[in-house]
Structures are given as structure tokens and as C-alpha cells.
């Protein structure tokens, strides 16, 4: 991963800088059941194919929050010296059980003064390259109390 390297170079990313895409998943039924048990999000939509079909889906969709958690991993594997101060996402289309997502991103805005701040545009795409999640993150240098 590139985090430590970035830290050594201490270069603050510029606007347009690409974050190397990474694949997360596949999210099998076991992963969905496990996430449901641990998070408490046991919406039958994610666990029961009949419920998913009753809601008009071909199969159970992966929890949006399970995939959104991958965004944090994605950012921290890029640079672990950052604190994610804001993360927002729109879930554009379901990712079905057994599928993976590919997360990519780029620096939409970079500011060095009066303090360092990045705005990242993030995408998660399905195996068919359809956009599944559109995200945006505001990240700051990790500091005392930020937990980064």
C-alpha cells in the first residue's frame, strides 16, 4: 500500500490526482449474514431472496453500509495519515449478493492554506462497470484526537 510512502514524501496531493482503483468483495451471502449479525441491520431485503424479489430485485442486495465501509479502507490504504471528516454517498443501484465492487477516486479539490484539506470524488462500480455508489469525502491530515 502507498500510505507509508506518501507519509515519507509528505507531498500533499494535487487536484486531479487519481486514487488507484481497488476491488472489494465479492460479498457472498455469508458476508451479508455476518454483517447483518454484527451491525444489527437484519433487513430481510439483504438476507432473504424472497423479500428481495418482493421488492422487485433479482436477488438480495449487498448492504449499502457494508460497501460504504470499504470507502474508508480505500482512502486509508491510499494514505493512512488522513482523517476522514466527512463521507457522503448516494446508492445508485443495487449490488447483488456474490458480486464485487471496484472503487476508484480522484482529488476533486486540494487546499493547503489556511489548512490542508482534500475533497475526494469516489465511485464504486459493479462488475459490469455500472456506477453503484457515488461518494464524496472531505479529508484532513490526521492529528491528535482525530483518530487517524
Amino acid at each position, binding site marked *: 500500500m502507498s500510505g507509508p510512502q506518501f507519509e515519507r514524501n509528505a507531498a500533499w496531493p494535487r487536484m486531479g490526482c487519481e486514487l488507484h482503483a481497488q476491488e472489494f468483495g465479492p460479498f457472498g451471502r455469508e458476508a451479508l449474514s455476518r*454483517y447483518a449479525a454484527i451491525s444489527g441491520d437484519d433487513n430481510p431485503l439483504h438476507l432473504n431472496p424472497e423479500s428481495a424479489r418482493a421488492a422487485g430485485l433479482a436477488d438480495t442486495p449487498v448492504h449499502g453500509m457494508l460497501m460504504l*465501509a470499504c470507502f474508508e479502507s480505500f482512502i486509508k490504504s491510499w494514505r493512512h495519515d488522513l482523517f476522514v471528516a*466527512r463521507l457522503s454517498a448516494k446508492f445508485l443501484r443495487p449490488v447483488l449478493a456474490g458480486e464485487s465492487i471496484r472503487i476508484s477516486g480522484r482529488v476533486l479539490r486540494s487546499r493547503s492554506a489556511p489548512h490542508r484539506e482534500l475533497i475526494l470524488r469516489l465511485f464504486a462500480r459493479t462488475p459490469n462497470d455500472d456506477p453503484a455508489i457515488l461518494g464524496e469525502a472531505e479529508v484532513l491530515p490526521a492529528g491528535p484526537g482525530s483518530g487517524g
Partner: protein
Amino acid sequence: MSAGSGNAAAALKPGGNRERGLRIASIGVRTKAADVAQFAEATGTAPFAGFVPLTYPFCWLALPEARRLIMDLVGSDALPVHESQSFTYLRALQPDCDYSLSIEAFRGANSDRVTLQAAVSTLDGKECLNFETVLRIVPLCAERRA
């Protein structure tokens, strides 16, 4: 996750009769280290151990008080589908600490969306984060339910 005693959900003042809102003034919640570690493992955030994953507070919406509030607005014969989510942190959560969670939930008249706005603060009142969840309500098809 864990919760202490909290206030019962209270109805917010209606905006005319066009919007229905419910509120939980305060639930005690805790970032129990073992629960956080399990969550981090399940979500693949474990390699960055030693902190609370930023999406972890979403788990607190599964607490009985929050769940009742959500399902009251979603209604029966329907399922909530997650449409959008945001987290805004002012300070990171720390493992094995107690916090206070408040939630307001709204559903407009004839709207198929429920919006939840939650705030987490330390027990001495320091604001840590806000998060917003928008759920689209999908009615279950009667013939498919059968």
C-alpha cells in the same frame, strides 16, 4: 454495540399535517471495543485497527428504540431501501467510550422517503458527529408476499 436507558421516542411538532416527525432525545451508546473489532473485521477495516470505523455509528440505528422509530415511519408491508448516507465528524470516536445519541426522523405526507438525522456527542456534551440516512420505502407486492 450497547445502549443504556434512553428517552422514549416523542412526536415532533407537525409542520401543519404535511410531515410526520419522531424524535429520540437521547440514547446512551457505547463503542465497546469487542463490538468495534468485530465490526471492523466484518467490514474489512480491521487493518486500520485502534480506532472506531467511521460507519460504525450506523449500527446504533438497530437499537430497539431507533428501530421502533424507523419502523413506525416505514410502516408494515414495506421495506426500507438505503438511498443515501452521510457522516460528518467533528472529532473521532474512541473505543470503549460512552456517548449520547439523538435521532430525529421525518416522513413527508405522501412521501416514499424517511430521513433520519442523528447526532452523537460525548456525555459532557461535546459534539462528535452528525449523520443523515435517507431510506426509500418500497411497498412489498401483495402477490409476491404471499
